[in-house]
């Protein structure tokens, strides 16, 4: 049984919470006492409001909104699912980015009466920016348009135009009613003209995460040195295979030092193994006594090496209430590598409705901007679109420790900034 992580995105009244509630309820993932607590709150009695299954905090209940990313879990005989529920308000781009960063699939929810609206576009483009490959267009509230096939077809066509225009992966459109339970888990007799899978059937059959396609990447998180009489000289580099796979005997280069060695052993739970594949957590031992510490990358020497650079261009989602201004100093955390960084220039702001470029002096909370970054120590980077694991980073406030931004590496050429003419790389996904 494998795992699928998906994010649900929709506007405030699209019925997102009801949809999640319906998935949990119809897949029999809600326990009786949780239902009882909901019924107790249901002042008027009547049917249980499934949306309440996902509204966690008191402030949310008081205001009837979702203020933060919540996680829900359910399992069918075929799969375990992790649902990331991100709020739909315009101002919560940061939560949407957070949720999308760990999702294999996005469900974009629209109200059948409204069709594709500005927020649909915004959510789709943000999910695409974060590299999500699988999209589901869930056309909800079909009961309120008399289950009309023409309404569904028009919305599906509108959405296909959007994805074509931006060269996004094609979406699977599914008509449903979360409130009535039509076509969420069980097929619906109200939708005789629809012959495709129900939402859950589709979620069960979509391919899951595959980290093995990208080049081998491994970063040292922690150095294991028992220094016991039995193991006086043992040095094991503990970390997760971020992408690709490694094998015993492979030549590797340590970055940033550039020293080369060979993998003497790969250990999983103290057993030596021949190969290790992402996302396994392993311990790697090297044949030579080279200097390796936390944050260093072990990569195959040669053409598959990442770019080692102190200068890069990146897309940032700015997540702090203090704006970003050019020249600002901060910390960059590239997984287990941490170093000082500065943002010499903000190139432009991205319009998340059109992917157009807007001139800007500062980045404000929830802005998506393209910037140049300089780092104090060199980092071993890949482009985000080639490798999510090593093309991603966060920016951190040195004093408060707060996470300021999510970063996607767009250009990481060490000559990029010194080349005579450096045309900005066209913005694409």
């Amino acid at each position, binding site marked *: 049984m494998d795992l699928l992580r998906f994010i649900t995105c929709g506007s405030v009244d699209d019925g997102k919470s009801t949809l999640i509630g319906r998935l949990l309820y119809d897949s029999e993932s809600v326990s009786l006492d949780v239902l009882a607590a909901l019924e107790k709150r249901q002042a008027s009695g009547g049917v249980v409001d499934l949306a309440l299954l996902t509204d966690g905090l008191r402030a949310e209940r008081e205001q009837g909104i979702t203020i933060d990313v919540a996680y829900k879990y359910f399992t069918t005989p075929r799969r375990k699912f992790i649902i990331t529920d991100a709020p739909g308000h315009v101002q919560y781009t940061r939560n949407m980015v957070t949720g999308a960063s760990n999702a294999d699939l996005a469900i974009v929810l629209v109200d059948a009466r409204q069709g594709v609206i500005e927020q649909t576009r915004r959510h789709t483009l943000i999910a695409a920016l974060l590299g999500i490959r699988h999209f589901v267009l869930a056309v909800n509230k079909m009961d309120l348009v008399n289950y009309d096939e023409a309404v569904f077809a028009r919305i599906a066509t509108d959405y296909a135009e959007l994805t074509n225009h931006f060269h996004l992966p094609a979406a699977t459109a599914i008509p449903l009613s979360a409130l009535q339970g039509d076509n969420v888990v069980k097929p619906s007799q109200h939708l005789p003209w629809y012959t495709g899978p129900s939402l859950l059937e589709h979620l069960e059959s979509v391919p899951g995460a595959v980290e093995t396609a990208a080049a081998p990447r491994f970063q040292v998180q922690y150095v294991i040195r028992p220094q016991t009489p039995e193991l006086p000289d043992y040095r094991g580099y503990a970390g997760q295979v971020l992408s690709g796979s490694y094998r015993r005997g492979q030549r590797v280069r340590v970055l940033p030092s550039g020293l080369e060695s060979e993998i003497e052993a790969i250990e999983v739970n103290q057993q030596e193994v021949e190969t290790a594949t992402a996302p396994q*957590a392993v311990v790697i031992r090297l044949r030579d006594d080279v200097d390796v510490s936390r944050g260093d990358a072990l990569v195959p020497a040669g053409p598959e090496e990442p770019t080692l650079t102190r200068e890069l261009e990146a897309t940032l989602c700015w997540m702090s209430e203090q704006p970003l201004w050019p020249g600002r100093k901060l910390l960059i955390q590239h*997984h287990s590598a941490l170093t000082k960084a500065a943002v010499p220039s903000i190139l432009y702001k991205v319009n998340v409705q059109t992917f157009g470029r807007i001139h800007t002096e500062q980045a404000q909370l929830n802005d998506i901007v393209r910037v140049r970054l300089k780092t104090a120590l060199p980092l071993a980077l890949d482009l985000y679109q080639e490798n999510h694991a090593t093309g991603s980073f966060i920016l951190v406030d040195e004093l408060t*420790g707060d996470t300021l931004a999510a970063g996607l590496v767009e250009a990481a050429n060490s000559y990029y900034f010194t080349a005579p003419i450096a045309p900005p790389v066209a913005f694409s996904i």
Partner: protein
Amino acid sequence: MSTTFDYLDRLEAEAIHILREVAGQFERPALLFSGGKDSIVLTRLAEKAFRPGRFPFPLVHVDTGHNFPEVLAYRDLLAAQLGEKLIVRKVEDTIKRQRLREPGGKFPSRNPLQTYTLLEVIEEFEFDACIGGARRDEEKARAKERIFSVRDEFGQWDPKRQRPELWNIYNGRIQKGENVRVFPISNWTELDVWRYIQRENIPLPDIYFGHERTCVVLPSGQLLGLSEHLQLDAEDEIVTRQVRFRTVGDSTCTAAVESDAATVEDIIQDLLLAKVSERGATRLDDNISEAGMEDRKRNGYF
């Protein structure tokens, strides 16, 4: 090797990655060990993360004085087998030192008082990170908490000030006085934990399995194991039943469920059929108010 991993492999890899981030980012971390199945699973994950080295943190147990004796025995045995340092601090001592009032009532729960002892032990050893076995499926407030959860010097959780948590990058940078609670098995469900226990063949305290026990029948119909801490009346109904515990908290506020389950496999079958959530079935203290967990977390609870 196949390119698709079982979901338990993915959950395990994620948890090991998180534990190693704690080791890499913090000066003085600790693993909060309750003797419950979730913290037992954490010790297995820590072995996978750090062997053949020692754990880069001690095990810390906050002893309420109302613990099940079987669990305390298991705790000492496990710490000895692992060869890792165990620090025990007692709620009893905090009550004396801080002149706290003992909770009264028929079923006195020291659960709220654990927070005081926890904050004391964090201060005593200057722990900057405390690893715990909480899971997001347990409760609605937990569902919204980050894996690295920054707390102020009073241990308080502020849901509106949470840091966004992106990809698998964990930001543990804190200011003096703050500390981080870390939940490596956030994404596991109760069923996942049991399936992992089965797969890894992890021994558990006996009270998790069906056994005969003398219990008080509560007005809700729940069963509470008889112990010296309960204040019983003449009209209380005392019964002997075949029961097991789904969670292991204070003996005064953790109800038993009727079960013949003798093996982990039996328990998994029980769970697949069970229609009542873990906390709902067994925790008396969460039923007080619907925002019970949110309030306690805001006050420094796990």
